[in-house]
């Protein structure tokens, strides 16, 4: 690969060429930066949480909904994160129920059906959805969607709609939703936030299916929809699953939107429009009030570790799923 000696002699001195070796080392070093980043994140969060890890009642932490970090004098603080875990997973669940069909459907439409200008426009819209910052989504939940949800889920006490809502667990009281920011609002906002990710990743997965599959399906007489359902979905199954999992990871880790849009009430929801509170929102809301080094501060870092482990698990799992599909294609 190196140039012959004679050619090298004739060339005049070039500063950029002379630094080849140090630059290569710098490039190598930067290449490892992401490993360093992950390791540092875990190490520093663990460092802040560590003194509390042996002292925390872990069974209580995962099974009690009593989160009382600053008790009245004389009482003991209680760190039960069950309601926070439930809050995180219920909002994520609602988000996925909406985002998975919508995301997959939109991805199929964009990659298989839409053409020309329509396709370009839709792609740009998806990109804009992805670009809107989470604090703005929270604002939208609080100011735009919240009042809308409250309007729909409000009823005269004793009316038919109120009975329907209470029976179906749409609202926990017969006057309807107590506030606009609740589980449903948070779930819808999270769905809108994770859809762009699901769409773009699913589109990649669908595009990775070789065209010969589509041609074979058409040759057998399948119409476009049958091609999608019977050929593309099975062929891109792992990629689509991974896309949905990454969408779930984003919903679990989302902070500012759920802080503003879920109502921030520490309880296990009994109905669709009950206010809830998530782990991420708890960290964001309470970290400012803690004293550096006290139990509350350290428990918030433990919540951070729980979040970190959950999202890392989701990411690694989805990566392994995609790797599985690559192996399958080679074989």
């Amino acid at each position, binding site marked *: 690969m190196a140039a012959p000696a004679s050619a090298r002699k004739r060339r005049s001195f070039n500063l950029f060429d002379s630094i080849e070796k140090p630059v290569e080392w710098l490039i190598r070093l930067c290449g490892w930066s992401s490993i360093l*980043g992950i390791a540092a994140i875990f190490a520093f969060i663990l460092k802040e949480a560590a003194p509390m890890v042996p002292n925390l009642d872990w069974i209580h932490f995962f099974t009690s909904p009593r989160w009382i970090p600053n008790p009245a004098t004389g009482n003991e603080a209680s760190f039960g994160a069950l309601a926070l875990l439930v809050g995180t997973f219920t909002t994520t669940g609602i988000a996925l129920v909406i985002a998975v069909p919508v995301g997959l459907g939109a991805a199929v439409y964009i990659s298989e059906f839409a053409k020309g200008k329509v396709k370009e426009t839709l792609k740009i819209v998806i990109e804009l959805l992805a670009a809107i910052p989470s604090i703005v989504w929270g604002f939208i939940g609080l100011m735009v969607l919240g009042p809308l949800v409250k309007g729909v889920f409000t009823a005269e006490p004793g009316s038919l709609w109120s009975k329907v809502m209470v029976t179906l667990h749409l609202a926990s009281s017969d006057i309807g939703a107590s506030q606009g920011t609740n589980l449903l609002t948070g779930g819808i906002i999270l769905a809108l936030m994770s859809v762009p990710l699901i769409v773009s990743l699913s589109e990649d997965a669908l595009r990775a299916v070789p065209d010969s599959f589509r041609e074979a399906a058409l040759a057998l007489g399948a119409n476009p929809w049958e091609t999608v359902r019977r050929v593309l979905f099975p062929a891109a199954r792992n990629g689509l699953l991974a896309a949905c999992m990454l969408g779930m990871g984003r919903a679990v880790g989302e902070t500012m939107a759920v802080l503003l849009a879920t109502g921030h009430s520490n309880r296990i929801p009994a109905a669709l429009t009950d206010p809830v509170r998530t782990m991420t929102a708890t960290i*964001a809301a309470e970290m400012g009030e803690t004293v550096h080094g006290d139990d509350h501060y350290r428990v918030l870092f433990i919540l951070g570790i729980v979040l*970190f482990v959950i999202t890392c698990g989701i990411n690694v799992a989805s990566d392994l799923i995609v790797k599985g599909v690559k192996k399958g294609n080679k074989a």
Partner: protein
Amino acid sequence: MSSTAVSTESGATNPFAPTAYESRRSSAAIRNKWIMFGFCMILVIPLLGILIDIFWKAWPVLSLDYLWENPSNKGKEGGLWAPLVGTFYLVIGSLLFVAPIGILAAIYLNEYAKEGWMNRTISITVTTLAGVPSIVHGLFGLGAFVLVMLPALSQATGTKWEAGLLTASLTIAVMNLPVIITSTREALGAVPHAFREACWNLGASRWQTIRTIVLPNSLSGILTGIILTVSRAAGETAPILFTGATFFKFVADGGMAKLFPYTPAEPFMAMSMHLNIISNQISQMPEKMKYGSAAVLIGLILFVNSFAIVLRVWLRGRKRW
């Protein structure tokens, strides 16, 4: 083949008429296509509706003065200059850290690393880092930069360093590292391998090839990635909550101090933080001020992103391979 069945059974004049089964199939296909189009509309219509609603309600306050004046009376009056300029420096600061490291890391992954467990580990950590929740990045920034780096820095320099632009930029930089690695890697990967081979055959070394062939040919792609990083850095709130952003910091109303109001060593104001506080933590905040700052933040992000979109369309137009 099934059409013959139709003609023999009913003696119909059209031997090619679809059977009930065939028409059911094709109508299902058309119906499902429209359902999927409907899903797309579920995304488009709320986005448009929300944007129109926000800009409509923000319209009374939007003006150049609104951008140029400092907020007063806890953001109930005045404009948005102080948080805007804070966000600007935050973005610049984080780019200074993340752009060189991210681009070099992408060069390593695309040009140097061989297929193997090392490359694979790095790829997994890049996706994992991208999936780390923003609030966890905030905790990391607090634990690493504010609590460990700043005391050391204060001791070394003899002046007091508070959580501020430096720590917030570093936190945002770590968060944006995977974004810039992924987009740069994609841009580098789009340069055909034949270009590199031709260059090597002329006797150029790996670094010469990267410098003279690969980077110039992927420059616009890399730029697109950087622009997306900018828009992401400008909107993030959770990572800067505990690492230097504050709701109020005095900013001079004129002179050079208005353009350079923050030192890296003291808290600063940022658009996202400003919106967070005024939208739900201050009572009797006029509606139009809330919508005004939301509209300005959205406008800023869309403005930056439209650059990326235009750049990409232009890039595709002049691509010759």
